[in-house]
């Protein structure tokens, strides 16, 4: 039996044969080939993911379900998750991105939550590379067209440009939904003797074996791998959302699962395995779009906009009439029974029979060898003495502000409906995105961030910094971080040096999560992001969600008032390693990022929360990409106010102004609140930078621009 054709390794074939007591047949092998791909089975990364803390007082549902849920109070939860759709977006940017957005929305829906906000993480190649323009515009259009039509606002995101993504652009999609905590739908609640129902679009040959495809490197002929292109139908998705929420509201279903990778097979076998029931599926009852589909094609089709429901037989008629109202196909395709069996029938014949536990949990894990990259020390060499200060600081700042990774992303987010559903208090363009919860005082804040450059130079510190950045931004806005989701985008784990980087990144992220008490509640892994041209940078992307108890306790950014005192809190000895500034001077990616200091992060968050909640500041911004200089410019431009700033610090001025890393923030504080502010930050590094006022932003012995000029350079709307 040539199992390798189906992406099955020898030990996997043997494991399956030994459980079955026979060799799997072809259809079964195809099913296992997809279900045991990295994308579905996490066979190389399960062990690593266990390093993440996943419990906390606010965690209602941790990893393992379709998405995580954190408690927002008043019986409401926020369900959220991020998912990658990298390979499909590289091959067919528009459709790949669109179906990525659609897929993550269904994950949220599967819990019975109404999807209320999306964010997107985009990683594009060098803007000068011939393919980048088409890839980036296709991906942005795909995200927008799908999200806009389905009516889920895209409220924020992250965009990074680097030549490492020339052939492997990344598209990570995040979605958040609101759910009543006593109405959460689970995939673990099916019982024997219930109906298995397929709701949504008809099944065609779309994206067959797409998950397996996502688990291999892109080769030149992968563009030819024909059936792997799924088409997104946001109209059908909108109908599906309304239908599923109506079914849930009327308590007609006992369990639900979205159909993502590996379609019917993964959704049904996961429900069976998690609920501990057996399942029989009749494939001749599946509504098909194409003629003559083979059973294995039906099993693995990734046709979009479908959900699998489990319901009592007595509710089927009512479910059918709701499906009819929303103009969706709906069919009972099987039933559950007692036992660990999973059997697919086609025209009366059994074509596959596998225990669900084997499909979902039977894949032998892989422990790839890990090895320190030999060039790591070299990457970290950055001699400041060899790096002259800029001759012209204004020019240096201009270069920084026009660096594509830092420049305003208006061209992207103007294409996204960020306001539909009328909950958006702060949409894209702000350090954190903020939603209101209708009928309540509290606000939900969220942020999506990544720092691949730092991860490349020091994966542990970079991983920790990535998590920390999200938490700092939330805390400054007044939002207590409740939990996070992540997408681990990495190249092949089969290269020992690359596996080491992955491992270290995860350890760094986990260390920060521990330190600040912010658990990981969901996530996704995307490996093999490399092509013959090269590998991507290590790119863990983090989406963190926090709560602001009342809108009065939200602290905005870009809100300086005349006469305010500007403070910088946090250490001055940050680092230029992997900074936007180095990139803007076309210097190689080098240096060693700041050491991660968990205590300080925790301390910072507490003080920042107090600052926001006590009204001690009029504006606040965590210092991140582009350092203090970028923070000053953004705040000044958005406030439409100037300031006179003097640094008065012995550290090198480029490091102070452009250095990145560490728990730092820029605050503007009304005169009368200065004493309170100082009390809050007593015991934490805190210096006065200057005063707000005048018509230009002047940094002593460095740069100076009029507010009008800044308005042209930095415009968020």
């Amino acid at each position, binding site marked *: 039996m040539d199992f390798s054709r189906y992406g099955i390794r020898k030990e996997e074939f043997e494991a399956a044969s030994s459980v079955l007591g026979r060799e799997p047949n072809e259809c079964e092998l195809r099913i296992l080939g997809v279900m045991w791909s990295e994308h579905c089975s996490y066979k190389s990364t399960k062990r690593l993911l266990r390093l993440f803390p996943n419990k906390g007082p606010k965690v209602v549902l941790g990893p393992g379900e379709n998405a995580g849920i954190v408690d927002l109070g008043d019986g409401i939860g926020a369900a959220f998750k991020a998912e990658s759709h990298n390979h499909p977006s590289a091959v*067919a940017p528009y459709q790949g991105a669109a179906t990525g957005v659609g897929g993550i929305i269904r994950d949220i829906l599967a819990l019975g939550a109404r999807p209320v906000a999306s964010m997107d993480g985009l990683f594009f190649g060098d803007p000068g590379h011939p393919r980048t323009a088409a890839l980036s515009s296709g991906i942005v259009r795909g995200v927008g067209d799908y999200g806009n039509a389905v009516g889920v606002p895209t409220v924020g995101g992250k965009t990074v440009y680097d030549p490492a993504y020339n052939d492997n652009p990344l598209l990570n999609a995040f979605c958040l939904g609101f759910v009543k905590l006593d109405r959460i739908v689970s995939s673990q609640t099916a019982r024997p003797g219930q109906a298995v129902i397929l709701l949504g679009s008809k099944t065609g040959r779309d994206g067959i074996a797409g998950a397996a495809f996502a688990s291999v490197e892109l080769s030149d002929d992968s563009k030819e791998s024909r059936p792997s*292109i799924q088409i997104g139908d946001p*109209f059908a998705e909108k109908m599906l959302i309304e239908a599923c929420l109506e079914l849930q509201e009327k308590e007609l279903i006992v369990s639900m699962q979205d159909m993502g990778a590996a379609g019917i097979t993964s959704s049904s076998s996961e429900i069976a395995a998690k609920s501990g029931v057996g399942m029989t599926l009749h494939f001749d009852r599946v509504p098909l779009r194409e003629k003559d589909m083979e059973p294995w094609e039906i099993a693995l089709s990734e046709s*979009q906009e479908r959900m699998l429901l489990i319901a009592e037989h007595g509710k089927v008629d009512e479910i059918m009439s709701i499906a009819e109202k929303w103009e969706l196909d709906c069919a009972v395709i099987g039933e559950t029974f007692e036992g660990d069996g999973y059997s697919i029938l086609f025209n009366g014949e059994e074509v596959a029979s596998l225990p669900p536990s084997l499909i979902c949990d039977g894949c032998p894990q892989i422990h790839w060898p890990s090895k320190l990259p030999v060039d790591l020390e070299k990457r970290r060499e950055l001699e400041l003495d060899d790096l002259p200060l800029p001759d012209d600081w204004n020019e240096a700042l201009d270069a920084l502000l026009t660096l594509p990774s830092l420049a305003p992303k208006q061209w992207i987010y103007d294409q996204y409906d960020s306001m539909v559903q009328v909950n958006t208090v702060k949409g894209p363009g702000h350090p954190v995105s903020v939603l209101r919860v209708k009928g309540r005082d509290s606000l939900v804040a969220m942020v999506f961030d990544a720092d691949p450059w730092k991860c490349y130079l020091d994966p542990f510190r970079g991983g920790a910094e990535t998590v920390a950045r999200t938490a700092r931004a939330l805390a400054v806005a007044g939002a207590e971080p409740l939990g996070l989701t992540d997408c681990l985008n990495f190249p092949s784990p089969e290269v020992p040096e690359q596996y080491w980087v992955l491992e270290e990144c995860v350890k760094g992220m986990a260390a920060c999560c521990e330190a600040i008490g912010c658990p990981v509640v969901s996530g996704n892994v995307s490996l093999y992001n490399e092509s013959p041209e090269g590998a991507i940078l290590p790119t863990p992307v983090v989406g963190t969600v926090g709560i602001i108890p009342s809108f009065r306790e939200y602290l905005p950014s870009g809100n300086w008032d005349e006469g305010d005192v500007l403070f910088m809190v946090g250490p001055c000895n940050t680092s230029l390693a992997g900074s936007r500034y180095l990139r803007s001077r076309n210097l190689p990616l080098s240096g060693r990022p700041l050491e991660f200091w968990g205590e300080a992060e925790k301390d910072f968050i507490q003080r920042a929360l107090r600052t926001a909640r006590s009204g001690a500041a009029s504006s606040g911004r965590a210092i991140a990409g582009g350092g203090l200089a970028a923070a000053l410019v953004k705040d000044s431009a958005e406030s439409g106010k100037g300031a006179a700033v003097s640094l008065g610090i012995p550290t090198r001025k480029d490091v102070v102004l452009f250095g990145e890393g560490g728990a730092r923030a820029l605050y503007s504080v009304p005169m009368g609140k200065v004493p309170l502010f100082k009390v809050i930050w007593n015991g934490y590094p805190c210096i006065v930078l200057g005063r707000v006022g005048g018509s230009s932003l002047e940094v002593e012995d460095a740069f100076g621009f009029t507010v009008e000029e800044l308005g042209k350079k930095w415009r968020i709307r």
Partner: protein
Amino acid sequence: MVHHVHVFIQLKDGVLDIQGKAVAHSLLSLGHSSLQSVKVGKYIQLWIESETAASAKEQASAMCDDLLVNGIIEQFRIEVEGE
């Protein structure tokens, strides 16, 4: 001379036609019950300066490959007037 070239673009077989599906549904509910199925594609007209119709067709075909057609999901057919 200027040739008038007609390009007909349609989705490849098997590729989900989301517009066709919705249009068919709508036409049926408007009472057009004899309708069996619908496919929605693009009709692009090009006016190309070239010596011969054959070369106009060739150029149109290159334009399809370069921009007009997404070869992953679409196929096309070209007609040149007076060819």
